[in-house]
């Protein structure tokens, strides 16, 4: 197994676990955690392709990963803010009980 394939398989495993978390857990914050894991797996793919690609000195994959990290941080802030706001009005973060988001 080449190192690139090994990194990609680890990333696929992390992505699948993140997907499983967001599809099976009932807590909204855990679903956000699953989305973060999926974004991290994508970042690992980007950096692995950058490292083993033909032009690692071109910096493109690295830059993509850095900007992706920044966007993921913004997404986490907004998502957790939404979860806190929902909990303030409805006193739950259970996704099976979240049927409407209007005030």
């Amino acid at each position, binding site marked *: 197994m080449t190192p690139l394939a090994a990194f990609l398989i*680890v990333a696929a*495993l992390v992505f699948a676990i993140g997907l499983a978390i967001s599809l099976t857990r009932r*807590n909204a914050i855990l679903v956000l955690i699953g989305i973060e894991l999926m974004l991290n797996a994508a*970042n690992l793919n980007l950096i692995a392709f950058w490292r083993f690609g033909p032009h690692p000195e071109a910096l493109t994959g690295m830059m993509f*990963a850095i900007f992706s990290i920044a966007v993921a*941080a913004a997404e986490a802030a907004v998502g957790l803010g939404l979860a806190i*706001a929902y909990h*303030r009005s409805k006193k739950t973060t259970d*996704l099976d009980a979240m049927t409407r988001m209007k005030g």
Partner: protein
Amino acid sequence: MIFGLSLVFILTSILTVAGALAAALLRNLVHCALSLTVTFAGLALLYLQLDAQFAGFAQILIYIGAVAILVVFAILLTRGSGIPEHRSFSSSWLAGLVISAGVFSLLSWAVIESIPASAARATPQLTVQKIGQALMSSYVLPLEIVAVLLTVALIGAVIVAMPESSKGGAK
């Protein structure tokens, strides 16, 4: 060397995947957040093994330093009145498990089938100075856009999470 992989890589990937699995399976939400931190640390170690020092340390600073703390705060703020949840998995957990297993098998099949055996290239001579120069020259427009996006997202998060009464307005 096992299967042509270094022992450090195998240990780091086992740590990463075990943290993610613990986040998926544990019932206590705070334990989930802590194992998520382990996963982030493992991913940072993987970045460091890929000679991406800047991304590795940015991962440690942003994910372990900021996102994990934010997740712990959100869990503690939204925790109910001490009543533990009876069921922590949704009613359609079997379908979700099947879908994610299918996605993983598809991805790993594609990886194993399509990657040719390529030798690792020489370590790229990449310093933080080069990254900074690239950020300030050819990537300056994305950098500014990300700065605006982060500002807007953080202000928006504060406004969304603000109590209803302090927002003002005719209500």
